[in-house]
């Protein structure tokens, strides 16, 4: 059995760790609140915009007219992987990296063999994971999380869109953690480009509308806008999910530390008691020996 002093040192060290994890939990909780507000604000906007776009788009005869909807053979693929800059958030980064690997290995295995799959990483953790698996990272934008605002994000989105239009890539996939609630994230993959126009029933709903200036103009105008919003939303989603994941992970860690301290204290008391008992026993038996 370990000595008293060792146990005492361990208790102190676990207590310090618990202090750190619980502080990190608080910080994440505060940041989560802000990130959560941001994502919940943008969702109705993004959904509405998407709905309008899909509905009008479906009623158009020449959907092909936009440069962003053009379907091409996916010879060159760009995967945009969004993770976090920092670790200590449970399986958050690993899971999303795995999801991305799954995607390229199943859907784009041919392109992968030809070395035509490139990664654009947002978040240091993503980049590390991707490089570890021997994939090619063409660009990384870790600074985006420092100032998560529309100006910076739109700029990157526009760059990606430009690369697609200029045929540098034929397919762009977006892999990120979608924020469900503080404790759970959904690993999601979306096809970012080309835009897929669904031919749904919704078309009818828009038949009687007046369009100003014209359907075609609106679609041309809205597609890039919608793409940028989609990109921004993915980042906000991931950002909120990250803080949620970290909060949960740190909560777990704090609980574990508390449990550990309880066990160690119990063990400490047992050892202390045992040593006292044996001391008394020694004294008593010593006294007995003198009497005899």
């Amino acid at each position, binding site marked *: 059995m370990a000595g008293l002093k060792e146990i005492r040192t361990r208790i102190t060290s676990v207590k310090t760790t618990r202090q750190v994890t619980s502080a990190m939990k608080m910080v994440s909780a505060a940041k989560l609140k802000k990130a959560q507000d941001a994502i919940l604000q943008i969702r109705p906007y993004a959904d509405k915009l998407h709905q309008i776009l899909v509905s009008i788009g479906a009623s158009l005869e020449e959907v092909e007219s936009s440069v962003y909807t053009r379907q091409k053979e996916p010879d060159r693929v760009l995967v945009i992987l969004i993770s976090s800059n920092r670790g200590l958030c449970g399986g958050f980064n690993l899971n999303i990296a795995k999801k991305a690997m799954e995607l390229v290995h199943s859907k784009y295995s041919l392109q992968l063999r030809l070395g035509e799959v490139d990664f654009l990483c947002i978040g240091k953790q993503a980049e590390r994971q991707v490089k570890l698996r021997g994939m090619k990272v063409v660009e990384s934008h870790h600074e985006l999380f420092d100032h998560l605002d529309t100006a910076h994000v739109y700029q990157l989105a526009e760059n990606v869109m430009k690369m697609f239009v200029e045929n540098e890539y034929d397919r762009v996939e977006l892999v990120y953690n979608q924020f469900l609630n503080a404790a759970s994230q959904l690993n999601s993959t979306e096809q970012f480009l080309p835009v897929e126009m669904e031919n749904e029933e919704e078309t009818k709903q828009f038949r009687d*509308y007046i369009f100003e200036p014209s359907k075609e103009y609106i679609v041309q105008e809205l597609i890039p806008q919608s793409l940028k919003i989609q990109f921004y939303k993915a980042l906000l989603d991931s950002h909120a999910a990250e803080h949620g994941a970290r909060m949960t992970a740190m909560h777990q860690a704090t609980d574990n530390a508390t449990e550990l301290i309880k066990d160690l204290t119990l063990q400490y008391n047992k050892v202390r008691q045992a040593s006292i008992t044996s001391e008394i026993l020694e004294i008593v038996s010593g006294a007995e020996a003198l009497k005899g």
Partner: protein
Amino acid sequence: MFLEIITPEKKIYEGEVKRVRLPGSKGLFEMLKNHAPLISTLRKGTIRVIDENDRRHTFEVTGGVVENKDNNVIVLAESD
């Protein structure tokens, strides 16, 4: 007529209104109650809202899109 003005950052207006004037791509236009269903893009300009109590609200936008359907007006606005 129920009006919502949403930007990517937040909802900037929500409530019953009497009339709303919007900077459409083809020019300024105003919508009153029972307007026909409409979708229009917006350009840079000012949205002027007259609410139920005849109070005036103005919002600057740089672009966006508006949808009107069954007396529900949703403005997806972009602003700086």
